[in-house]
């Protein structure tokens, strides 16, 4: 009886997860989607607690309390710019749970056949995702060096470790009794997770995180096979496919392949191959000059990039938007799909600052407008404005979708120096005659601009 009730609860829970993802399609229903997901999880937990096999609630209750105490501040105290790190950390937790369940199940029941195959998958994926995500967290949080670390025969070594782990796993599925092999298998999985991330640059982490999301999901699905639990299979495979799609989308947006992200050690090669520095002139300007130009413009397109997130300048930017709008300037925001370090990074950032999102335009919708714009104001963006992606076949970012800021009458670029962005390459945009470099930290420079503009307003 109870078992039947549990199954219906599980089916409902699975349906809620599906709705949850469906509702994430549009901003108007997205919060409902999040709520549905949480409700699905609650049902899953309640259903599981109801099962007759679960007899001891003390430890579980304790773990729940700790989980809630740890989870709430993790959600509310994290600044929005730390979302990538938090996601990485969270993956590590999820994958660890899956891996530990697999381990415990092995020592408890030492299963055979298909169940053991599933268990091996679960444990392998779980542990490698655990260490991999911890590494990713370290790189994003800048505890570990951001740059890719490479050494000779790296790929050969990595693949051998993976090969050994898989071999141990196969052996275990054939002879599950070899309990001494299991810790070795675990160790190899853990090491492989670390080695997988070492050669990947910090800036590629978001793509890797999406991929690790996929692994964590598959690990949960494998757990479902091992425990004969359909809800785990459904939720796990929804996750697995979601992570896969997201990482593909991100690779495609950067015009790179999976292999290139995973084995390309991107960020190092380009930094050294930056090319000879020809002595080319740039025009720079002060906040006062820039404010004047902005004030006399009729239409301004603002192009935010990673530097905006670094400088946490979104709220100041909102003030700039307000003051310009009040002075009758038509202000739009151009969002490149790969601006920042996470898909939708800029959207989240600008939304945080309460910038109305009917002023935000996707690349394809706004690229034709640059030709009519008086000013393109680039704030902390670099690669996504690099015209070399359109014209220079030899450039590593050739083919990456970029914003056509160079078509605007005047281009202004706020950044701290002439140093390159994520791709580590020079940006010809800066040497154009129509380009004014506004050197400084994004937040303080925008503050200055707002001040100047307000003074103009008062004077008028």
């Amino acid at each position: 009886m109870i078992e039947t009730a549990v199954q219906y609860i599980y089916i409902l829970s699975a349906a809620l997860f599906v709705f949850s993802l469906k509702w994430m399609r549009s901003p108007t229903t997205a919060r409902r989607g999040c709520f549905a997901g949480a409700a699905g999880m609650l049902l899953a937990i309640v259903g599981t607690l109801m099962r007759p096999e679960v007899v001891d609630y003390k430890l579980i209750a304790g773990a729940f309390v700790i989980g809630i105490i740890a989870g709430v501040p993790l959600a509310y105290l994290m600044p929005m710019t730390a979302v990538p790190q938090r996601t990485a950390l969270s993956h590590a937790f999820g994958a660890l749970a899956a891996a530990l369940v697999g381990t415990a199940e092995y020592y408890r029941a030492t299963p055979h056949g298909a169940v053991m195959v599933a268990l091996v998958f679960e444990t392998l994926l779980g542990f490698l995702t655990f260490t991999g995500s911890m590494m990713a967290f370290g790189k994003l949080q800048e505890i570990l060096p951001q740059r890719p670390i490479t050494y000779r025969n790296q790929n050969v070594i990595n693949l051998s470790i993976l090969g050994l782990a898989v071999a141990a796993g196969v052996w275990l599925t054939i002879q599950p009794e070899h309990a001494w092999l299991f810790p070795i298998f675990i160790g190899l999985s853990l090491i492989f997770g670390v080695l997988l991330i070492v050669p990947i640059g910090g800036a590629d982490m978001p793509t890797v995180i999406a991929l690790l999301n996929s692994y964590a999901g598959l690990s949960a699905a494998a757990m479902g096979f091992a425990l004969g639990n359909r809800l785990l299979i459904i939720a796990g495979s929804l996750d697995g496919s979601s992570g896969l799609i997201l990482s593909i989308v991100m690779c495609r947006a950067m015009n790179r392949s999976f292999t290139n992200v995973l084995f390309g050690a991107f960020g190092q090669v380009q930094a050294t191959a930056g090319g000879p520095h020809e002595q080319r002139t740039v025009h720079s300007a002060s906040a006062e000059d820039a404010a004047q130009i902005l004030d006399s413009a009729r239409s301004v397109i603002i192009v935010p990039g990673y530097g905006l997130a670094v400088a946490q300048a979104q709220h100041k930017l909102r003030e700039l938007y307000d003051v310009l709008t009040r002075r009758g300037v038509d202000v739009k925001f151009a969002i490149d799909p790969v601006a920042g370090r996470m898909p939708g990074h800029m959207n989240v950032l600008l939304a945080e600052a309460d910038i109305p999102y009917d002023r935000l335009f996707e690349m394809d919708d706004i690229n034709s407008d640059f030709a009519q714009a008086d000013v393109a104001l680039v704030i902390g963006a670099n690669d996504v404005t690099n015209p070399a992606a359109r014209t220079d076949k030899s450039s590593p970012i050739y083919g990456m979708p970029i914003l056509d800021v160079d078509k605007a009458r005047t281009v202004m670029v706020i950044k701290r120096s002439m140093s390159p962005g994520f791709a580590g390459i020079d940006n010809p945009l800066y040497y154009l005659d129509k380009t004014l470099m506004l050197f400084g930290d994004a937040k303080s420079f925008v503050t200055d601009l707002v001040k100047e503009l307000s003074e103009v307003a008062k004077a008028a």
Partner: protein
Amino acid sequence: MLTDLEVGLYIFMLATFLGLEIIRRVSPLLHTPLMSLTNAISAIAVVGSILITGAAHASTLTRTLGFIAVTASMTNAVSGYLITDRMLKMFKTRKPANRPGAAQ
């Protein structure tokens, strides 16, 4: 009539197809919250963790591992849904808004 494995394969196939279909249509605007939502959903491992931890004659090893697993996935679930909601709250449709930008 069917083994668990076969049922599992049916379900895995359908759920994967379904996931691929649905996610492909999510607007890039929402990719970051989506990632954090699916991350929270991966806390479903809590189901297995509870079963391991709460079982009748569990050894100390099993219980310890289970305890860590429940804690980890519970943290994951709680923080995951809360932060996703926090992010999404920012996306709500606003009137063309002209209150002065609330500095941090």
